């Protein structure tokens, strides 16, 4: 009796160990591994256990445990991170009326709605999520889009999960603000860019007043969800993601930041390359427009070389896919970064702009964006230079789970 129990426990332990080996344990071997945490490793291995990276290094120095599935590829990178998308709120149909309404990224009943939480709108089964995951995106900052002075809030997700809670990395990240005359297309007022800024300043001032009054428990005003959200922005608990394209609007965003002291992320930013000194001094990160974004209207001075111009000027940035009003319903981050790579940024620069840079800007670099011990086992595998048109992506791994293993 005394000897049986330990034996049984030992057997159960072995069984659990065996089960663990098949669940989210994986070895990835690459002819070249871009870890984004140091120099690339030729003929390297990434070991993943329980969904987390346990070892990264030269294949000669790492023993792959028996029974662990091994994926091999020419080039291995961290799972890609889209620093700003609307996928999951915006859907594949583009439907705004009738039976198919899958454009939840913009609510046009009011121009300022900081109370809109993304978690209620994120559709984890949206087909576009699988589409972007198939091209390497494992993490995305998504949610409410451009088009209103404040369209709502955003969240960070992994591109997987059977419900929003399972997908979430961070449920509440930023309020989505838009400056410029594009907002006027969706609302009666603001009809001009100056009016938009005035409405935004008024809202933040009211939030300041509300926060001060709430401190006095005797005379505290009733809770107000809109003002609460803006107080969180003023407290640094939520970021202010401001979509602004022209020099005029980017400068207005910087001016608002000076006035209210919030943490500013500049999104879109077609003309950011004309304000690099200001952006560097203000230490404002840029969630830069997709290099293949259509250059029209307020975005008319966008250049394919934007990413490299910002990199050379020392401005922090990452590449976004953003929101598309028409087609494609989502841009493909890998394809967009390829254009930046080919127009001055180079392979490693472009890779940085869709891995470690967005992780740092989003404040999730302790989990994703690089291949090193302790990080999530999020990996992308390619059969060549990831950015070459004719290279294929052959596997996408999220926390040790293999999501595709055929090249496309």
């Amino acid at each position, binding site marked *: 009796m005394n000897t049986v129990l330990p034996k049984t426990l030992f057997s159960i332990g072995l069984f659990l160990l065996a089960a663990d080996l098949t669940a989210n344990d994986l070895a990835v071997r690459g002819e070249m591994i871009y870890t984004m945490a140091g120099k690339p490793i030729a003929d390297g291995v990434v070991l993943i256990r329980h969904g987390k990276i346990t070892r990264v290094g030269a294949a000669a120095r790492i023993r792959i445990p028996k029974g662990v599935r091994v994926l091999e590829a020419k080039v291995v990178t961290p799972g890609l991170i889209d620093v700003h998308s609307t996928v999951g709120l915006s859907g594949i149909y583009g439907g705004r009326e009738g039976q198919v309404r899958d454009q939840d990224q913009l609510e046009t009943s009011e121009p300022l709605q900081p109370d809109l939480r993304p978690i209620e709108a994120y559709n984890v089964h949206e087909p576009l999520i699988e589409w972007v995951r198939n091209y390497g995106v494992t993490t995305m900052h998504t949610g409410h889009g451009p088009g209103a002075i404040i369209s709502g809030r955003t969240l960070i997700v992994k591109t997987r999960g059977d419900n929003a809670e399972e997908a979430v990395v961070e449920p509440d990240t930023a309020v989505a603000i838009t400056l410029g005359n594009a907002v006027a297309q969706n609302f009666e007022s603001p009809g001009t860019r100056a009016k938009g800024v005035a409405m935004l300043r008024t809202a933040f001032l009211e939030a300041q007043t509300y926060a001060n009054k709430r401190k006095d428990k005797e005379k505290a005003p009733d809770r107000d969800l809109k003002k609460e959200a803006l107080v969180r922005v003023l407290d640094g608990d939520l970021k202010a993601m401001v979509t602004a394209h022209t020099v005029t609007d980017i400068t207005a965003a910087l001016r608002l930041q000076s006035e209210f002291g919030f943490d500013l992320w500049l999104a879109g930013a077609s003309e950011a390359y*004309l304000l690099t000194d200001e952006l560097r001094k203000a230490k404002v990160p840029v969630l830069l427009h997709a290099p293949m974004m259509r250059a029209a209207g307020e975005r008319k001075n966008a250049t394919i070389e934007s990413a490299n111009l910002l990199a050379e000027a020392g401005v922090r940035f990452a590449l976004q896919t953003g929101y598309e009003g028409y087609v494609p319903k989502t841009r493909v981050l890998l394809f967009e970064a390829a254009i930046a790579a*080919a127009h001055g940024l180079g392979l490693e620069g472009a890779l940085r702009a869709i891995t470690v840079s967005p992780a740092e800007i989003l404040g999730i670099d302790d989990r994703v964006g690089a291949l090193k011990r302790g990080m999530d086992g999020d990996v992308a595998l390619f059969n060549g230079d990831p950015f*070459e048109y004719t290279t294929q992506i052959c596997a996408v791994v999220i926390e040790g789970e293999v999501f595709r293993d055929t090249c496309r």
Partner: protein
Amino acid sequence: MRRGLYIGCLMGALAALLWAPGLAIADPAVFRNATIFPISGPAIENGTLVVDDGKIVAIGPTATTSAPPGASVTDLSGKVLTPGMVDTHSHIGGPSGGDASAPLNPEVRSLDAIDVFSDGFWRARAGGITTLNVMPGSGHLMSGQTTYLKIRKDPRRIEDWLFCDDPINGICGSMKMANGTNSIRQKPFPGTRARSAALVRDLFVKGQAYIEKQAKAAADDKDPPDRNLRMEAVAQILRGERRVQFHTHRHNDIMTVLRIAEEFGFQPVLQHATDAWKVADEIAAAGIHASVTYIDSPGGKEEVLGLNMKIGAILETAGVDVSFNTDDNILDSRRFLRYGALNVRNGMSQAKALEALTLAGARALGLESRVGSLEPGKDADFVVLSGAPFSVYTKVKQTWVEGDASSIAAILSIGNTRSVASRFTMAM
């Protein structure tokens, strides 16, 4: 101040490039030591192209292709030469078609509406495109006549760019048609697919009657019937003189195009053809060309959910003649090569993908005797690439149209040239 200067310099540099009198060459001109993809034949590793008076006069291996006496010689070692590319579907220059008054507009000519100073044409040249089919949109069953253009240097008016000799009475393009959901609208437009087909068949039946009346009048030696601009254009289609570029996405809409084309004996080109991979054998059997707009992700409406990245490979295997198009500004003309490259990524042969950007596009427009390949007697439209045609790192260095070139690096990098172009125009 400094930045103002920077923009000024940028604009200045770009204007200077636009102003540059091209890389004007003395005739005859010889381009040596390039890797040449003639399309009409196998690639020539170290090739020479000889151009005279805007036409190709010789092409072959450098070792066996001699330079005519007095020719200017350009060394293109390390560079790649392809034909000027042919875009079968573009909206550059803002061509308008019919208005909201009618779903069928055979008499409306896009050539009356195209702005030759549109910066989009510079983007097209920056992408290596030299021949364009500029079309009205897809919001009508028949939105109007399309226009074939050659983007020659220094245009003043649309006449400078036409392929046809007579813009008043000649046939200067195809006819744009559409089915599926874009052309389903409020009255007087159709409300269903079947109604759409019925309206189109009714128009062609009337066209047949018009032709019969003309023939009968001729046979009876009587005055022809009164001219009817609508019926004249429909009759051109029925007589096989004018092609139809047919916007169509879903598999059953594609089959509708095939059925109506067979009934009335005209020659359609399937435009977009999103679901063509589902009915590839039927398209191949009908001998009908498919011109694909290759989008990075599916959706935007129900009828395009069938987007398949392997479409080029599947159509190639089925034996369908395939070209690619930009539908600019749906896709950016500056990256035309990209769509061939992505199809190679998805299983199409490099040879067919290159052909799809050049000679196949020319066939879709019936212009293959003039453009689309590098052969003696054809127009001297060609592109100088920095490297392999389907590498993302390759740049279009020069685009030559009938012996004139523009250097286009600046246009590639600057998103918008409108402000510069308008200054340029005012200066002229």
